[in-house]
């Protein structure tokens, strides 16, 4: 087995990338930069990986170079955050539409304006419909484990889609936690040799990538992309089973915590789930049946499974660390509401927007939300469906 270490999220993900040992990495340090790619650059320059690194002049070019490198026929990585992800936006669709399994850790941080650099989910939520797979991570261990599993999922012959591994800016990326690393050879055996599909460098069999496709066939391509998305959940579960064999750690499409017999529940992504679990324990000690659901595979969103897991609750609060301006609610709420809509008997749903731009999410916030849910479950009445919490009035 591997070793136990105390590392930051950035360090752990960089270590996972070193162990996977990709063929090409492209990176650009847009503000806000994290030290993940600095660490990887050091692996390259000290001969710890076989990777060729391209230090581009923008995140737009990073993703563009990833597209070229991946189409050429090899394993490709980059990493980004916030403004960088926003700048890549155009090419994200090209990477997924071209079916290139690029792996990209995303350190989730707020978008400008105002310029902020601290943790929230606005960046990845803005890119949630770009046709990529998104795996979200509560802590450093999950970020490390998700990174390794992402390669197997993205490169699976039934899938061939790029994947983002999301982890919270600062709270996870820059904080030190105790985690377990796998051995190098366990990781390389797990991800296996990269198998290129129609590589451009096969000059004996020339292929054209990126054609113009007009109204006669464009829609069929979109439909095919959608069909591939529907296959991802199964592959995520299969890969998780294999991963459990080498790590002893279990992963699913989402995590439930004391949810099975719960009356009230919180749905929340990433690091704030940890804080919430502690408060749920306190409520359970008081005899209140509270539980939690934390999505892991956010894109494609496992609607059916999540609906099944939540449908028996009386009241649920979805906490969003991003807003979807002009939409009815935060992005996660909208997905949860869609998951529950098919059920005639379903929980009452409310939505809180929290923790934007690095605003701390405290146990007190979870307490307030759970107390409100207790009240809603009792009376069936809602004061306000969507509300910002932990904010000045």
């Amino acid at each position, binding site marked *: 087995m591997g070793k136990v270490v105390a590392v930051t999220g950035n360090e752990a993900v960089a270590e996972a990338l070193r162990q996977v040992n990709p*063929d*090409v990495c*492209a990176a650009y340090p847009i503000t806000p930069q994290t030290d993940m790619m600095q660490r990887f650059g050091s692996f390259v320059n000290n001969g710890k990986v*076989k*990777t*060729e690194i*391209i*230090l*581009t*002049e*923008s995140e*737009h*070019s*990073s993703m*563009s*170079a*990833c*597209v*070229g*490198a*991946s*189409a*050429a*026929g*090899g394993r*490709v990585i980059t990493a980004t955050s916030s403004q960088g992800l926003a700048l890549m936006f*155009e*090419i994200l669709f*090209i990477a997924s539409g*071209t079916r290139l399994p690029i792996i990209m850790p995303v350190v989730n941080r707020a978008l400008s304006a105002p310029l902020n650099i601290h943790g929230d989910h606005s960046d990845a939520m803005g890119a949630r419909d770009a046709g990529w797979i998104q795996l979200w991570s509560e802590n450093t261990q999950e970020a490390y484990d998700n990174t390794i599993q992402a390669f197997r999922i993205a490169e699976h012959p039934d899938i061939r889609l790029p994947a983002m591994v999301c982890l919270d800016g600062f709270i996870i990326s820059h904080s030190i936690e105790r985690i377990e690393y796998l051995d190098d050879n366990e990781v390389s055996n797990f991800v296996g040799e990269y198998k290129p599909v129609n590589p*451009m*460098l*096969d*000059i004996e069999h*020339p*292929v*054209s*990538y*990126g*054609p*113009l*496709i*007009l109204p006669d*066939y464009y829609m069929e391509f979109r439909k095919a992309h959608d069909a591939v998305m529907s296959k991802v959940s199964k592959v995520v579960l299969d890969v998780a089973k294999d991963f459990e064999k080498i790590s002893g750690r279990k992963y699913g499409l989402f995590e439930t915590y004391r949810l099975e017999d719960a009356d009230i529940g919180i749905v929340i992504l990433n690091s704030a789930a940890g804080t919430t679990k502690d408060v749920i324990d306190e409520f359970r000690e008081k005899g209140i049946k509270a539980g939690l659901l934390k999505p892991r595979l956010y894109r494609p969103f496992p609607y059916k499974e999540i609906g099944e897991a939540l449908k028996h609750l009386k009241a649920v609060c979805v906490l969003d660390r991003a807003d979807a301006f002009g939409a009815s609610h935060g992005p996660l709420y909208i997905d949860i509401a869609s998951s529950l809509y098919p059920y005639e008997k379903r929980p009452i749903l409310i939505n809180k927007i929290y923790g934007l731009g690095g605003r701390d999410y405290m146990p007190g916030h979870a307490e307030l939300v759970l107390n409100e849910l207790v009240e809603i479950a009792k009376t069936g009445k809602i004061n306000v469906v969507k509300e910002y919490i932990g904010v000045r009035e």
Partner: protein
Amino acid sequence: MATTPLTLRELSKKEVLLTAGHRMCSGCGAPPVVKMVLLASEYPVVAANATGCLEVCTCISEYTAWKIPWIHSAFENAAATIAGVETMYRSLKKQGKIDKEIKFIAFGGDGGTYDIGFQSLSGAMERGHDMLYICYDNGAYMNTGIQRSSATPFGADTTTCPAGSVVPGKLQKRKDITKIMAAHGIPYAAQASPSHWQDLMKKVKKALEIKGPKFMNIIAPCNRGWRSATDDAILLSRLAVETCYFPLYEVENGATKITVTPREKKPLVDFLKPQGRFKHMFAPENEWMLKQAQEDVDKEWEKLQREAKASEVS
């Protein structure tokens, strides 16, 4: 490596790697440029293409005119895309997974090169990728309907800077992209014209033998945007050279060499006159425009000659 002599007899024996049947306009200057570039290579070529006429007309699913591996990603990133392909090649070569000698070429129009793709191009050149970037320069956004680019010549009438009653067309000079690329300190930058096909192909051959980033700007007349006769592409590119509007030169390791000196420098109006986009400049009230355009060409030509001379001495 055996090299094919640049004679029509020998070249005609080589396979043309951009097939007929693509949907470029008749009389377009870009396809002959691409054919010449690919014909000049003695090596297998992998190419990237910026969004633009050449791209949309040569690969419409389920057809492709490209007999070489080819990728189109977006408008502004042909240089970054081919840089990615080239880097994967280096990685796999280093790992012993590939052994063939392959050359990497990016094609972009002037919009994708001078303007929106400029940063991506500059970055790729600075990083030193072993690649050749070819700009086929028709002096405007022709694919989207003849809008002004920073390659549009002074005075030209385009759809976004039309020759109006107050503003008579484009009032700015075009960007000198070739010298800007040479200023990156890359080993090779050059200008070429399909009218001088041997010069063009010689430059491509030379560029492909040099390790590192190379840039070529090749004039490619567009009869739609230039509002010229359909069969005048080669004639106009020749006039561009003979009037010194588009001088043929190369900058190799910092040394400038004029590769084609016109026997007699023709007046710029010879190049402007056959093109509808300059028609308004011939109106009496716009005489100053013709004068200024000629002065600009003279100044640039003199400067280029001085640079070439200085390179000879040193």
